[in-house]
């Protein structure tokens, strides 16, 4: 069960239309290291992970990622909603327009559709938690590159918030990995 709140986790403002920037940012919506992949990866791993603490961490970070998905979607929507056909063409989004008009879709920065092949649930808790730590670092790096590409300070502000969250999540998954490792070691002794 989830409860929706009719607000964003962090406010999103943009200085104006910016189709090119949106084309890059959408990778954090539907790309390999994006928020959809993150959320679905963690929420799906909850069922097989041992320990109540690890389940809580996967549940709660997976839920926060949904809030981030909404923030990224809001960014892309605000940056593209008033785009002209000519502007979409200039940003190499004519293909996107042909398939989706100005609707959002789960794609990466070059238009590849999202696939479950981006994520994994190995069933082995060490493998899964290590994958999650890598995922947080890849997402942090992606936000870094997007910040380098951004020419809108208001968008950069949101990207910085999201980048910081990846660092915090990495930390929490690291602590969870240590705890689960300990739990598995203790189990072997008995």
């Amino acid at each position, binding site marked *: 069960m989830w*409860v*929706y*709140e*009719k*607000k*964003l*986790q*962090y*406010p*999103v*403002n943009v200085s104006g239309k910016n189709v090119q920037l949106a084309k890059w940012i959408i990778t954090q919506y539907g790309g390999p290291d994006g928020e959809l992949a993150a959320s679905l990866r963690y929420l799906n791993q909850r069922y097989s992970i041992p320990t109540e*603490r690890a389940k*809580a*961490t996967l549940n*709660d*970070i997976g839920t*926060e990622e949904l809030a981030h998905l*909404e923030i990224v*979607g*809001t960014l892309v*929507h*605000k940056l593209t909603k008033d785009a002209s056909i000519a502007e979409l063409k200039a940003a190499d989004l004519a293909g996107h327009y042909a398939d989706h008009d100005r609707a959002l879709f789960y794609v990466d920065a070059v238009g590849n559709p999202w696939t479950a092949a981006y994520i994994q649930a190995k069933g082995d808790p060490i493998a899964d938690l290590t994958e999650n730590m890598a995922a947080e670092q890849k997402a942090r790096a992606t936000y870094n590159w997007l910040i380098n590409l951004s020419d809108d300070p*208001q968008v950069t*502000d949101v990207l*910085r*918030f999201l980048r*910081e969250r990846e660092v*915090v*999540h990495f930390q*929490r998954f690291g*602590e*969870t990995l240590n*705890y689960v490792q300990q739990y598995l070691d203790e189990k072997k002794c008995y």
Partner: protein
Amino acid sequence: MALVKDRALADYPLEGVFRVTSNNAACLPLLRKIQQVEFAALELNLYLDTHPDDFRAIEQYNRMHRELCELKRQYEQQHEPLLNYGFGMNNGRTWRWAETPWPWDM
């Protein structure tokens, strides 16, 4: 543990970046406050998931919870619904949930 909350709040420029295009400007200061307190509660929540024995953090979490409940109650009473599915009240004779602006349109 005070560090977690203080750093979290200090790191992000939480004041002065709102730009309003819709007619709900009156809601924004309170909404901003809710976002701040909820962020602190979320940070404490994730911290507690991996440090469940930190009683000082639990006290901080509970304090944030109480403050957040009060802010949300005020917001829903004075402005617009934040919650549906029975978690929030409808103030008015029409269904406010479907009349008020969505976050991506604000």
